[in-house]
C-alpha cells in the first residue's frame, strides 16, 4: 500500500532538469516548447527545475562534448535517487550528425546510463511527450 502510493506519486510528479550537453539548440527549443501552453506538460505534473537536487528526470540534449563530459557526470551524481535519464534527439542518442567529429562522445550512453531515447532531429514536442510517457510506463512496470 505504502509502496504503491510512492510509486503512484513518482509517476504523477516527474520533475525535470534540462541539461544541454552541447546540442545545436534545436532540441532545446523543442524541450522548452513542451512546457509552453500549446503542449503544457504540467498536465502530467511535470515541472522544470533549475537545481539537479530537485529533479527526477534529467532531460539531456546534445552530443556530449569533451568539455562537458565531467559536468554531465557531476550533474548526474547530484541528482537524488531515483533518477531517470531521457536522451532527447539523435545527438544525445548516438551523436547524430556529429558522429565522427573529434570533440564529441557520440551519445549520452557512453557516459551515463540512459533510460529512454527519443529519436528525431529534433523530435517534435509530441514525440518528446511520447518519450516521457514511455519513461513513465517503464516506471509503472518496474516492481
Amino acid at each position: 500500500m505504502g509502496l504503491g502510493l510512492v510509486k503512484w506519486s513518482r509517476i504523477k510528479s516527474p520533475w525535470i532538469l534540462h541539461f544541454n550537453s552541447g546540442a545545436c539548440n534545436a532540441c532545446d527549443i523543442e524541450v522548452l516548447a513542451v512546457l509552453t501552453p500549446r503542449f503544457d506538460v504540467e498536465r502530467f505534473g511535470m515541472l522544470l527545475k533549475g537545481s539537479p537536487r530537485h529533479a527526477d528526470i534529467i532531460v539531456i540534449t546534445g552530443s556530449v562534448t569533451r568539455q562537458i563530459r565531467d559536468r554531465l557526470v557531476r550533474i548526474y551524481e547530484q541528482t537524488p535517487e531515483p533518477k531517470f535519464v531521457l536522451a532527447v534527439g539523435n545527438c544525445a542518442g548516438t551523436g547524430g550528425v556529429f558522429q565522427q567529429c573529434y570533440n564529441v562522445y557520440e551519445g549520452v550512453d557512453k557516459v551515463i546510463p540512459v533510460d529512454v531515447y527519443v529519436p528525431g532531429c529534433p523530435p517534435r514536442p509530441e514525440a518528446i511527450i511520447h518519450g516521457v510517457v514511455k519513461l513513465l510506463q517503464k516506471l509503472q512496470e518496474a516492481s
Partner: protein
Amino acid sequence: MTGLEEAVEKLKSGIGAENVLEVKHQPPRNVFVLIKPEKLKEAITYVMKELGYQYIITISGVDLIKENQFEVIYHLSDYSNTISLKIRIPRDEPKVPTITDIIPGATLYEREVHDMFGIVAEGHPNLAKLLLSDGWPEDLHPLRKDVTIQQIRERLEEERRKGVRGI
C-alpha cells in the same frame, strides 16, 4: 571602376605595389588580396584608417600543407564591401603580428586561429585556450591537415587514459 577596385588601387599605392602579390575579385563585393606578411600591419592600418573600414569579420586560417605554408586571411569590411587580406607564413614558424592594437574586436579571432592551427599572434595580450577543452594537449591543433579526425580522437583517448580530465 567599382569602389573595391579603387580601394585595391589605393591600397597598392599605400603599401607599395610590389608588396601586393595577387588580387582576385569575387563579385559582387569581395576581393582577395595577397600581400607580403611583413606588410600586414601596415596594410590593415591603411585599410582601417585611410579607406574607412571599421569592422573585421573574422580571421580564417588555411593549411596549405603542399606548399608547407599557412594562409591567414583577415576579412575586413565596411559592412558592405569586404577586403580579404591574405598572407602566407611558413608552416614551421607560424607567427603573425597581432592586430588587436588596431582592431580590439579581433582578439577572439586571433585566439581561435591560435587554437586551431597553432598560429601565434605575437604581442597578443592573452593567448589562452579558447574553444578547446580544458585538458586538450597543447601541441595538438585540430584543423591542421596533418592530423585526421581519427588520429585526434585516438590521441585524446590516450590522454584520458593517462588521467587527464576535461577532454
